[in-house]
């Protein structure tokens, strides 16, 4: 009876998905002139000098939404930390990783860790030129720290430094918005020179915001992973 109900539910979901996706012409150019998407595609390279239109939409046109997204991630990590984070007392036995990794894994992690950090930094610094941006770069950096935490039993990240990086990046994002409000006429308004298309220093406030978001996301996710890995094992 229960299985029949599940199958029925799956059939309903599948039918509605197929029904909804039937009308979407995949692989065809369906951007009609005069719509908002046509406006973005047409105006972004000329008005903002940003090659990656997605970044321009996410950070410039819809910058306030991105601020909300960043706050959501901040609140999630704050809630998780307030429930699970515990300070280590002196002389307490560490139980984060029970067995140390082999020497091969340790040496390989040490070799690949700087490369992961550089890749993450590249992704968020070049967010307005190539695919990617602050969230992706921050997540890549967090995976690098995760690799080190798994390979080395006694690898520690300082929660103090993470807290400062996270707070300063958040303040930078909101501060840029307020400067835009003061200098120009609206919150998160672009107040810097836009430069030339495909230059590293172009796009106004977009690269600055994405660097701030990258640091913020990297610090948050690293803190979350460190907190989770250090839960006291009950066995």
């Amino acid at each position, binding site marked *: 009876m229960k299985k029949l109900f599940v199958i029925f539910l799956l059939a309903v979901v599948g039918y509605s998905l197929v029904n909804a996706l039937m009308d979407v012409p995949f692989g065809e150019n369906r951007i009609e002139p005069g719509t908002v998407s046509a406006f973005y595609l047409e105006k972004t390279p000329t008005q903002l000098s940003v090659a*990656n239109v*997605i970044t321009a939409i996410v950070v410039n046109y819809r910058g306030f939404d991105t601020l909300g997204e960043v706050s959501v991630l901040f609140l999630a990590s704050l809630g998780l930390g307030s429930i699970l984070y515990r300070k280590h007392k002196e002389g307490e036995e560490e139980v984060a990783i029970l067995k140390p990794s082999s020497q091969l894994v340790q040496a390989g992690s040490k070799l690949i860790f700087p490369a992961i950090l550089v890749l993450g930094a590249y*992704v968020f610094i070049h967010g307005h030129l190539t*695919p*990617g*941006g602050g*969230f*992706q770069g921050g*997540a*890549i950096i*967090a*995976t690098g720290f*995760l690799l080190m935490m*798994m390979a080395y039993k006694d690898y520690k990240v300082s929660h103090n430094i993470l807290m400062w990086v996270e707070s300063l990046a958040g303040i930078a994002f909101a501060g840029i918005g307020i400067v835009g409000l003061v200098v120009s006429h609206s919150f998160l308004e672009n107040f810097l020179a836009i430069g030339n298309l495909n230059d590293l220093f172009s796009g106004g406030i977009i690269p600055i915001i994405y660097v701030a978001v990258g640091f913020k996301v990297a610090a948050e*996710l690293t803190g979350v*992973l460190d907190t*989770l*890995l250090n*839960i006291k*094992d*009950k066995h």
Partner: protein
Amino acid sequence: MMFEAIVIIVLAIILLAAAVYAVMQKDLLYAVIATGVISLILSVFFFIMQAPDVALTEAAIGIALTTIVFIITIRNTSRREDEVLVEKEPDGTEKEN
């Protein structure tokens, strides 16, 4: 074009197989690794369908971070789906809950 279609079909079959395996497998560690495989193939799909931004996110979050969070959860609970948690009573007998 033909080659791309073959690649997509093969990847889609692997994706479905991994999804079914993740649901059927009683050993949760293997099931979590199967969901990681799903994320990997999805990330390739996003790239083929010209959404490299989403592909990057899926690669970092779906493959690495989600998988490790599930593995940490498994370490702190139980590894097998049908396993009954056994706790010791104060008098030494075992109690099932």
